[in-house]
Structures are given as C-alpha cells and as structure tokens.
C-alpha cells in the first residue's frame, strides 16, 4: 500500500514531467515557427505580393505554392493586417483559392478562449472570398461570457454583412473600450465596412458616438468640429464628452472653450490635466484654455507651454 506521501511524490513527479514535456513542445514549436519565418514565409510572401500588386486592369493569376494552406492563410492575413490599400479583389481571390475562410472556420468551434477570439479576428479581417454559410455560429457566440469572443464575433458579423454594421454596433450590449473602437476604425480604414460618421455622432447610443468620434479623429475630418462641439456640450456621459473635447484639440481648429465652460467645471482633476496636456501638445496657448481652469491647473498649463518654447540664441 503506497503511503500518502509517496502518492503525492509520484503525482508531483508526473506533473513536473508533463510540464517539462510542454516546455520541450513549446521549444520545438518555436523552432518550427522560426524555420518557417526564415525559409517558407519569404517565398509565400513573394508569391502573394506578386498576385496583389499586379495590374488591376488585367485578370488576377493565382498561383498556389506547395505549402501548408494554413501557413499560407496566416501569411496572407499578416500581410493584410500590416498594410493598407491592398487590392481587395486580388486578396478575395487568394482567400478563396487558399480556402482560408474554410480552414479558419472549420477550426474555430473547437478552440476556446483567446484562441477562438484570434480565429474570429482572422475571419473578420480576411477580405470576402466565398463566404462560408452561416450555421448558427458565430452569431451564437455574441451571448457568451468572454468579452473578447463577443467583440470579435461582432467584428466578424459586421464585416460579413457591412450593410448591417451600424445596426450591429447599436445593438451591441457592452461598452466598447478604446482598444476595441481603434480596431473597428482600422477595419473601416481598410474598406471592410462602411460607417457614416454623421449618423454615428447624431446617435443616442454611447458606442455609436464613441466610434463616430474615433472616426473623426482618425480621418481628421475638420468639417465635423461643429458636431463634436455639440457632443462635448450635450452628452451626459463624461467619458464621451471628454473624448469629444480631446478630439477637438487634435483637429487643431479654433475652439471656443467658453461654450464648454460648464463641462470643464464638472471635470475632475485627472480629466482636466489630460485635456491640458492634449491641448498643449497640439499647440494651443495659455490664453485659450487657461482662463477656464483653476489656479493649480492654470499654473500647470503655463508651465507646460513654457517648456515647449524654444530659446532663440
């Protein structure tokens, strides 16, 4: 009869051996990936680049190299993620030829947690090939508890049905974070969906307004300054009005801070300082904003503005 101590020793030894085996597996996996990055990926990248940078007026010739399809799909995805204004027609044909959506879609239901979220991100980012038919997923995952899975399901649905993007955004139940909004704007930049910033800014929904503000900031839409000022003055959510004010500073336009004096008085110390720093970094002077602030914040603004003045000698 094995005593409890020996049983514990055997169990712990088995666990340690398993963890050691996992370490070895990770090391071998890293070595395989390094080999792929060094040898296979440059070749795949060259083939893909030749396809997508060809003459847009001619037909696209797709060449499928003798390489694992999953690796090809990942290389194509990485190229698409790190570039902008790539020929979407050629990318769509490549997506279809490599079967990228089928590969990613087949694997997604069998993964969990962050791995599933990453596959959903891949599905959302790939240009539309022959879209796999909706089989109840990923829409069903909008109701899971994992935040990242819910968000990337939303992204996948928005890129799958761009006409319903605004509706999906409005009906999303969680508050979108700055990181999530930045990703939506990135997909907008790549032409995967279409959102009208005017509809977004006029909406009563918090997510829509935040996305609209991010769109104005990203594309530097000067004509939206009036709408941003309305949002800054009228929105009951402090985060939204604060973001609108910061975006107004980013545009570099003339801001009548007097109109938002009430909102400035309601700001706490952190929000005030944040606005001061943003205004100074974007070149606003002390006279523009200093009068509306308290003594302490005014000294801070004056000090920061002084530290940006060059000494001419």
């Amino acid at each position, binding site marked *: 009869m094995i005593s409890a101590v020996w049983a514990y020793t055997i169990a712990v030894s088995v666990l340690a051996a398993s963890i050691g085996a996992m370490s070895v597996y990770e090391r071998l996996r890293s070595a395989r990936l390094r080999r792929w990055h060094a040898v296979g990926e440059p070749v795949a990248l060259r083939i893909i680049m030749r396809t997508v940078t060809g003459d847009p007026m001619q037909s696209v010739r797709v060449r499928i190299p003798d390489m694992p399809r999953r690796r090809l799909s990942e290389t194509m995805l990485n190229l698409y993620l790190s570039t902008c204004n790539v020929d979407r027609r050629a990318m769509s044909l490549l997506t279809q030829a490599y079967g990228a959506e089928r590969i990613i879609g087949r694997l997604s239901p069998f993964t969990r947690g962050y791995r599933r979220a990453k596959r959903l991100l891949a599905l959302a980012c790939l240009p539309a090939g022959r879209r796999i038919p909706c089989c109840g997923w990923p829409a069903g995952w909008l109701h899971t508890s994992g935040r990242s899975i819910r968000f990337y399901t939303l992204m996948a649905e928005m890129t799958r049905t761009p006409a319903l993007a605004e509706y999906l955004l409005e009906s999303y139940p969680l508050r979108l974070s700055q990181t999530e909004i930045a990703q939506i704007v990135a997909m907008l930049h790549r032409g995967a969906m279409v959102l009208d910033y005017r509809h977004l800014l006029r909406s009563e929904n918090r997510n829509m307004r935040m996305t609209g503000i991010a769109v104005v900031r990203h594309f530097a839409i000067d004509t939206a300054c009036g709408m941003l000022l309305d949002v800054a003055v009228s929105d009951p959510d402090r985060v939204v009005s604060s973001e609108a004010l910061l975006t107004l500073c980013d545009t570099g336009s003339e801001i009548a801070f007097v109109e938002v004096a009430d909102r400035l008085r309601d700001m706490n110390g*952190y929000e005030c300082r944040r606005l001061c720093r943003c205004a100074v970094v974007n070149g606003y002077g002390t006279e523009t904003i200093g009068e509306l602030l308290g003594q302490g914040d005014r000294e801070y603004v*004056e000090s920061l503005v002084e530290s940006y003045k060059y000494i001419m000698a």
Partner: protein
Amino acid sequence: MAAVAAAALCEVWRSRRDAGRRRLISSSSMMRCGGVGHVGISVVCSDVDNMAQIENLVSPEYDNYEVVLCLDSARSAARMRHIVSRYRLLKVALPLHNDLPVVGVRAMYRTPHGAMRRVTLIDKRFTSHEDALDACVNIASFDYVTSVGRDEYLYADAVDMLAMQIGEWEPGEVDMLQCPGAGGRVVSRDMAVEHGGYAGMRYMKLSRIALRRGCAVDRYRIVGTRSTIVHYAAIITAVAAAFVIVGVVAGDMALGAASAATVVLVAASRSYAGRCRRCRD
C-alpha cells in the same frame, strides 16, 4: 508542500492564458493604424547614455509616445552633445512650476514640433535616480509613464501592446499596469505625482491604487551564457538541498523525495512560464 505545488500549477495555467491573450493583442495591434484613443506613454530614463539603447527606445512608431532622458552634463558631456546633434534637439525654456520638487536642472532640449520622434533631454545634476525620474515626470507630455533602466531594451511591439492593454479600461481606471516576469510598470502620471514621484512610490501600498495585471513582457536584458549556467546550477542545488535536508537530516526518505519533487515541479513551472512569456508568436 501541497500549497506550493498548487501555486506552481496556477502559475502554469496563468502563463498559458497570458500567452494566448498576448497573441491576440499582438494580432490586433498589428491591424491597428494610429493610436489607441488618446492613450499616450512617456518612457523616462535616468543616466542612460548608450546610443544603441537610446535608438531602441526611440524606435517605436506609436503615435502618442515620447522618450524623456535625464543626464548630467558634468558626467557625460560628450554623449549629451552627440544626442543633441543626432536628434537635432533645440534648447527650450525650463518649466516655471514643477509638480514634483527637483533640484539641479540646468537645461532642457526637445525635438522640433512636428518631428516624427519625440525626444526630450534634461540636463540635471545627478543626485539620485529617483530624483532624475521625477524631473522627467514633471515634463512628460502623456498620461502614462514607465521607467527604463540601463541595459534594458524594449521589444519592437512593446509600446503598442502596452497601449492596447491600457485602452481596455476606461480613462482613469488604470493607475498602474504591472507587466509579468521581468517586465516593467506603467504608472499613471497623475498617480505618480499624487504619491510623491518615484521616491514616494517606493513606500506606496499597492492595495490603495487601481493595479492592473498585464500579459506581455515589454523589455529584455542582454544576458550571457554564464547567467544561464548559474540559473540551472541553482535549480540542481535547490533540488539536492531539499532532498538532503529533509530526507537525510530529518530521517524520512519519503518526505525528502516529496520535497525534492515539489522543488522540481516549481522549477519546471517557472521555466515553462518564462518560456510562455518570451514567446512572441
């Protein structure tokens, strides 16, 4: 021993989860164009004059990012001149009012407005590293600051990943982001000022601030083979010591074997966690 083994297994589970989360953040930061909202990070350094390290710190292309260096011209005048000419820094006026009290600031230099790289150089008499970092925090332009020491280099995507992690929270909800393992701490500038700067934060109670746990190691040190050999030798010594002390001295071989197995489990789990943290793919 059972508690130690359980803690080791928790570390393994957490490191696997963080590795998955890091891969997800890495993919999503790759697709992003532009900043994450208005999240900005200032890297503050004291007594860092190695040009290779400065080039590494200045290389991230995140929009709202700057590097603030603090050097003493009495100790490294030639290096300061080299930095000023390399980044075409212009002398600027000293700030009139400081949030944190510092002494000995002689001059300040900034990159021209609109330059691609934001670099600020402070010429200050060296008193202590904390004092130098406080001088950097005084003129930092962004909401979050992180200190980088000598011989610490940032990974290429470190700043993007830090910004993505901070952006997962509402503005003002993150006072400190703690990177795992050998990573650094990103602190809110206003929180640092409230607690008296880097000198005051040493005695600060972490339970009183909004501390968030990050998943990505942002920096690395260049170590040689000797430290790896020392590391493995320490593990072997610990295992042998556990067996000898408990088994032989206490006279219970079973207990000695159990303690040695626990030490091996802890070493394996730490090694696996370190490998997961270093994994960039």
